[in-house]
Every structure is written in structure tokens, then in C-alpha cells.
């Protein structure tokens, strides 16, 4: 699939819930196992988002079913029972599409002076 087709298909998945967004964001860096994702999201959000096992795996199942993430090989030296997940190209496209959507929203907010122009203070 070429890039524009990929981005078009990605539009069909928007908007993402914030849990899904954070999971994808976490996997964009490197493949991780379940507990690794939880820790990463927690650090990234300074503890504001703590995922429960149930929430995480419901999301993982959906993302796998929809082809946004896939299972990766467990790195050598790790506990073989730990399953690692990584982003697919399509998953990356969805993450980018959602990020762009959010960016547009933020721009709109700036235009409406709800938010300050970059670096400034609100009016």
C-alpha cells in the first residue's frame, strides 16, 4: 500500500481513545511487553495514566485484530513467556494521523485564542 493510501485507511480509525493513543505512542519507540507498556505510559504521563491489566489487554487485542500492532520476537535473555508487541507500518500511520488531527485541533484552539501562540501566554 502506498503512503497516501495508508494514510487514507488510517483516517477510518480516528479518533483514538487516549488509552489506545498512549499504547501506540509507547510502542513507537521500541517493541515492549505488557508490563513495559504500562511502566512507559506511566513515566511518559508522569503517573497521570496508570493502566490496569484488563484495560491494557483489551486494547492490545483490538489493536492486533485491526492490524495496528503485531507480536514480535522476545529478545534473547528475556523471559520467554513475556510477549513483546511492536507497531506495524499501518499502526504508525494511524498514530501519525491521530497526532496530526490533534495538532490541527490545537492550532484551531490557538486561532480562537483559547491557547496562547507558541511560547506566549493566553490573552
Amino acid at each position, binding site marked *: 500500500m502506498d503512503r497516501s493510501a495508508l494514510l487514507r485507511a488510517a483516517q477510518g480509525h480516528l479518533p483514538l481513545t487516549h488509552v489506545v493513543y498512549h499504547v501506540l505512542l509507547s510502542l513507537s519507540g521500541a517493541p515492549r511487553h*505488557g508490563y513495559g507498556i*504500562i511502566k512507559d505510559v506511566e513515566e511518559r504521563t508522569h503517573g497521570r495514566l496508570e493502566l*490496569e*491489566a484488563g*484495560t491494557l*489487554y483489551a486494547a492490545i*487485542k483490538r489493536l492486533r485484530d485491526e492490524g495496528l500492532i503485531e507480536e514480535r520476537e522476545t529478545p534473547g535473555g528475556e523471559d520467554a*513467556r513475556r*510477549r513483546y508487541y511492536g507497531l506495524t507500518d499501518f499502526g504508525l500511520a494511524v498514530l501519525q494521523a491521530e497526532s496530526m488531527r490533534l495538532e490541527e485541533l490545537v492550532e484551531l484552539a490557538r486561532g480562537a485564542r483559547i491557547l496562547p501562540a507558541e511560547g506566549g501566554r493566553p490573552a
Partner: protein
Amino acid sequence: MSVGVRIHRWLLRILPRSFRDEYGEEMCRVAEEQWIALGSRPGILRASAFWLRQWFALIRASAGLYKHETGRGGGWTMNGFAQDLRHAARALVRRPGFTTLTVVTLGLGIGASTAIFSAVNTVILRPLPYGGADRVAVLFRADVTTGERHEGVGAANIRDFRERAAVLADVAVAEPWSLDLQADGRVVSLRTWTVSRGFFDAIGAEAMLGRVFDDTDYDEGGSVVVLSHRAWTNRFSADPAMIGRSLALDGDARTVVGVMPRAYRFPDAAEAWIPRLAQPWDESARAADFMTGVARLAPGGTFEQAQAEADRIAQGLREGHPEVNADLAYHLVPLREHLIGNVRTPLFVIMAAVGFVLLIACANVAGLMLARGAQRERDFALRGALGAGTGRLMGTVVAESLLLAVAGCALGVMLTYAGVMAIRALGPDHLPRIDELSVDGMVLVFAVSVAALSAVFSGLAPSLRLSRPDLRGALGDGARGSFGSRAGGRARSRLVVAQVAGAVVLLTGAGLLLRSFGVLLDKELGFDPDEVLAAQIFAYDYETPEEAAAVVEQATDAIRAIPGVTGVAIGSDVPGATDGVIAKIDVTLPFVIDDRAPPPLGQEPIAALTRVTPEYFDVLGIGLTEGREFDRGDNAQGARVIIVNEALARRHFGEGEALGERLVLGSDRSSTPWEIVGIVADTRPLGHASEPRPEVFLPLDQSPTGSLVFVVRAESDAAALTLPVMEAVWSANPAQSVYGVTTMEALLEVWLKERRFNVLMLTAFSLIALLLSAVGLYGLISFSVERRIGELGIRRALGGRSGDLVGMVLGEGARLAGAGLVIGLAAAWYLSRFIRSMLFEIQPTDPLTFVALGAVVLVIASIATLVPAIRAVRVDPVEALRSE
């Protein structure tokens, strides 16, 4: 694996199978890792919050996944129910008040009953940690004519018993003992039992490390010792190399051959066991009754056969030794019965009380569900009219009860942990094995079963009613349908009446216990236990009596010199002593009154004998009623004098006639008599519940003994003197061990603890029950006021006075509470007989308790009704009529 993880694993079942197979293991591991990351001791609040979040996430994920599957047309057969669950979850979140009240009510019921069940499980249901414990009996000496049971048995009789027994194998005795152990330059006393050949075989106990005694130990002189787990851990740092090591105990070298398992504590929680060899004085002490006798049934034997055999052997012993065994009989008591016999009734009573709390909680939840049903009746009727089948409508209600039960169960399990901690902290030592109390799989299964049952009970009635909606009634007539109708109201009214009745039963039980506890505490002890410390020593290891006396005197002076000590005395025994920290030195002996015709041999009156120093009565606060106390002149050179208590004086002499009379003490009637020089007030020897008995006090200087208790009165905080007093004894002789030190209050607490525990438990549960039923009553009356808002508005509009309206609503509450009260009191009248054995000087049908509690219930019921009644008068007629 922690319990939280286990529940988490169990809860995975609510997930779709395919998902569970794929991710279940991983989810558990991740949850466990998160749990571990929380730290080793996260505290109950953080732990509960953590697991609640995890479980809620599971339920939410489950709902989402089912939706996902059905959305794609998957063949999920339960999808209807999954939808119901989702629907119910949303509906519950929308009504936080109702949801919280229901979950808290269920949680209280489940938590309380599970916590108590865990106690019953630990104490009564779990098997004893001894091999084949159901075939072990404890032997008691009894009186063949009166059937009265003594404390225990004597060694020589049991030796003969062992030789003649066939149905009973391994008949053995254990004698309380103490061994001095040198540690850190001090000598400490080890609580010890000397056990005769075959003792551990009779119990069926095995060592955790090494071995118990075998025949060679007895044949070779018995210089071996078995340590308890506690002594091994506390005194020898749990060193596995202790086995085979030699210890200097009482100056003799003894080889450690074994360490007992932690759970082993028979005859009680001692620190060491040594072999008991036949002693020269056994023959003359045949009538002794202070040793613990045990026996094991030989294969194929029954307790009936064994008792028959014991009767036969006792007869032989009566004939063989008529001088001491004239009244000898033996009672066999199964070991389990002996260990848990006297706590079984109280525990089952508490368990029953908790059952009542649970029923009341269920009734409350059922009432809440019915009320809620009434509010949703139109919705249900509409759905019915649009073609939803009975099953579907029922499913909605069942789903709601199920979710509530799961949440209630989660809360209940948390409360169980809190409850178990509370029970352990209350430290009822009288409950055997209570330190093993824990929440195990059996207890969790119980919690889940209780939750499931309560879901069924509280959800069934409403679901049956709701699934058959009366369409015309519900849709046709304002907001009132069959729930608002008479039948629905009646169902709820009955539930409230039942709740009030249940609460009254519990309150009555608690009230009776509380009152009898009060009566008990009001009993005059006859002495003042406040700020008095007792320290017991056994001063027998001295060359001469003079040497012993010098050490004792030096120790007394050293204790007197401790800052904060206001008085020191010595007695051979103190009131309140058990065989706990202070060993009871119970000496009773026959006496005859000089110059009176003596009764036949063996029929003399009996008195308890205590040797004391002159300060004894003063330090213990025992009042002198006549004559004088002892003084320093009452020594070996002085005339033989005694002081008796009022009980003895009353029984044998006329008013004011005892002074100057003389008693011959002991069975030798030719011995020099003792003159009564004083009479002191009666004391209760074994705590508040015991009765004073005839007592004789001798000056310690005229009748020396090595069994001594220092009685130390402190200005304040007697417990703080524990170490200084021990140091004072050691300053007189570092090799003199102190057997036990404790405050007199702590000694008495032993006698009160069991009752206090029962009172506390029953009171707590009855208050929960009262609260729940008050909430139930309040809920019903509020609902009824809400339902009749139109009617109330019209009454107001037509000039109805506030007083009348309040009276009307209050009357409705009073009718229900009154009915509950009458039924409850009648049930309590019948049921209270089951706690008769737990009461002290109070009749199970004590009228004062019944009347007082009736009043309390009516007051609480009025308060619960008053709030909605006040709302009723505030009804604005215009608003009310508009809403109609």
C-alpha cells in the same frame, strides 16, 4: 501468590474464552508485577484501591469485548446476558447512592460473616496438627460418687493404669516443670513439661527437627531435651545445628534431640519437654491431680470401650489403694473436645449472630432492589409491551444483582482481612490456635458462596416481581404500578419487619452478655489489683534454708529500693494466678478445730493455705476485719499464729468468736495447733467469676517455702517495674531465675478476656444489625412518602395540619417497628437459652435487658422515621399536585 492475584485469576472467567486463552496468563503476570511494584506492605487502603481498580477494569474490558464480538456477528450465546451486564453496569453508575448503599450493606454482611467463619474454620474445623488426633483422649481424675472432675491425674496411678490398659495404648502423663537456662550471664526460666514414656506417641506428635523421645532416652536416665519452636527461634536463633548440642539446664547437661513444629502446643505452649522418670514421691502422691494425662485408643478400640476399661481400672485402683484412691474414677475426654470444648458454644453463637447480620443485609438489599424496581416499573412495563420476554426482563435484574454481589464480595473480602486482623489484635488467647488465623482458600470460597447466595436471595424476589409487570397498572395510573401497589408495599414491609426482628434478637443477646459482664466487673475482688506487680521465683537450689532466706531478703530489700516502689511483700501464692505467667501454687489441706470433737478421718473441712510476709495484706489491699496482721515477731521462735479469711470464720465460728481459736492443720492431729490472731476480707481466687473459699494464711517465717511470689506495689505504671524487679532478684543472686513477672491486672485479664471478646463481637454485630435495619426502615418510609406525595399534597391543600401528617408517617413506621419488635422479642425469649452458659448471674430472660432494648429499638426506629416524616410536612401542595 497473594489473594488479590488469586481473585484476579478467578475473575478472568468473566472474559470471553478465546480472549482468556490468548491473554489470561499474561494479564495475571502483569497484574502481579504491578502489585509487586506497589511495595511489600502497601497498606490496606492502597491495596484495596489497587485491586478494585484492576477488577473493575476487568469487568469493563469484559463488557467491551463481548460487545466487540457480538458486533461482528460472532456466535456468542450469552450475548444477551453480556448486554444485560453492560446495561446494568451503566444503570448502577448512574445511581451512585443506591449502588453505594447496596454494596456497603452487602460488603458488611459478607465481610463480617467471612471473618468470623475464618475464626471458626481455624479453631474448630481445621484438623489438629497431630497424627490421628481423633483417637486421643485426655484423662481426668474424677470423684466416683459426685462425678466432679479434677484438674488432672497423679503419676503412680497412671503408671498402673498403663500396665492394665488394653483398649488404651500409650497412656502417659505430663507434669509442669521449669528448667533454669544460663543465658547472657543471667539465669532464665524455661517453661517445661516433664513427660512420661510414650507421651508423644499418645499425642501422635512428631518433631520438626530431630526426633521426640524414644525408649532408650528413658532407659538411659533421660538427659535429653526437646525444644519448642518458640524457644528454638527466640533463644537459639533457629539454629539447625542445635540438634545434638548439649545445654546446661538446672546445672545438668542435656542433649537437644528435637525441635517441635510451631503449631505444637500440648499440654500448653511450653518451651521445652524432658523425659519424666519415676520419682520416689510418686507412690505417696497417688491422689495428686495436677498432671495432664493422655491416652491413645489402640487400633479398633472405641471411646466407649476405653471409658469402660477406665472405669474397671479405677475400681481396681480404689481397691488396691483405698487410703488415697477411695473416691477415684477416670473421665476420658477426646482431645478435640478438651481443646475446643468450651469455646465451641460462644463461637457458634457469634457465627449465628453473624448469620443474622447477613440475612438482615440481604433483606435490606432486597428491599432496596424492590424500591428501585418500583421506580423503573414503567420502563419495564414498556419493554414488556414492546415484546421483551420474561427471561429478558429477569436477566436485567439478575445482571444487576450479580454486579452488586461481585462488588459487595470484593468489599467483603477486604473487610474480612480487616476483621481477621482485628480478631488477632484482640488477642483472645482462649481461642486455641487463633494465632494461625488467616484468610485461606476455604475462607475465600465461603465469601464467594455467601456473595452468590445473597445475590440470589436479594435479587430473586425483585426479579420475579419485575418480570411480570402489570402493564395496565404501571402505565395507566400515574407513576404507581404494582410496586407502588399494595402487594409491592407489603413485600417490602415484611422485609423491614423481619430486619427489625433480627436486630432485636441480636441486640438482646448482646445486651444480656453486656449486662452479665457488668455484673461480673461489679464483683468485689477483695483486693486491689491496680499498680501491683507479681514476680514468681522458685528458691529451692540452695544448700541451707538460711542461705535461701538471705537471698530472698536481699532481693526484697533491692526491690524496695527501686524508685517508685511503695511496698513489697511475699506470698507463696497470689489471687488470680493461673498456670500462665504466674504458676498457681494451690495448697489445700484438711484442718480440725482444737478442743472440738473432730470429724471422722477423711471428712475434715478443707482450707487453702498461703504463706505470707507481714506486709502481704497491706500491699494487696486486703482488708483486716478483726484482730491483727502478722508482724516481725511471728517468726520461728514465736508462737504459731495464723490469719483466716471471713469465709472460714463464718463457716466454722459464730460472729466474733474466731479470734483466739486454734486450728490443727494437716492430717496429723497430734501436731501443734495454730492460733487465729486475725481475720481478713475474702478474696476471689480465680478472677471475678470465682467464689471466695475458706483460706488460712501462715507467717512465711514460721512455715518457710521456696515457692515465692514477690508482690510489688508501685506509685504508678507497675508494668514498667518488670525489668528492675528482675534485676533486683539477680542482684541478690545472678543464678536465681525469675519464673514469671506480670501485673495483677494482667493476671485478672486472663479471666475476663474470653467474656470481653464475646461481648465485643456480639455488640459489634448487633449494632451493625441495628444500623442496617434502621436504614431499611428509613428507606421504606422515605419511599412511601415519595410515593404518596400527591396524596400528602392534597391533604395539605385541604388544610391538613403538620402534626397530623407527621403523626401519619410516624405511625406507619411505628407499626412496622412495633411488629418487628414483638416478633424479635418473642424470638429472643426463645433463643436466649442458647447463651445461658455464657451468662454470669443473669437469666437468659432478664426482663430489664428486654425492656431496655425494646426502648432503644423504638427510639432508633422513630429517628429513622422522623426524617421522612419531616419531609412529608414540607411538601408543597402545588408542586405535589403538578407532579401527579
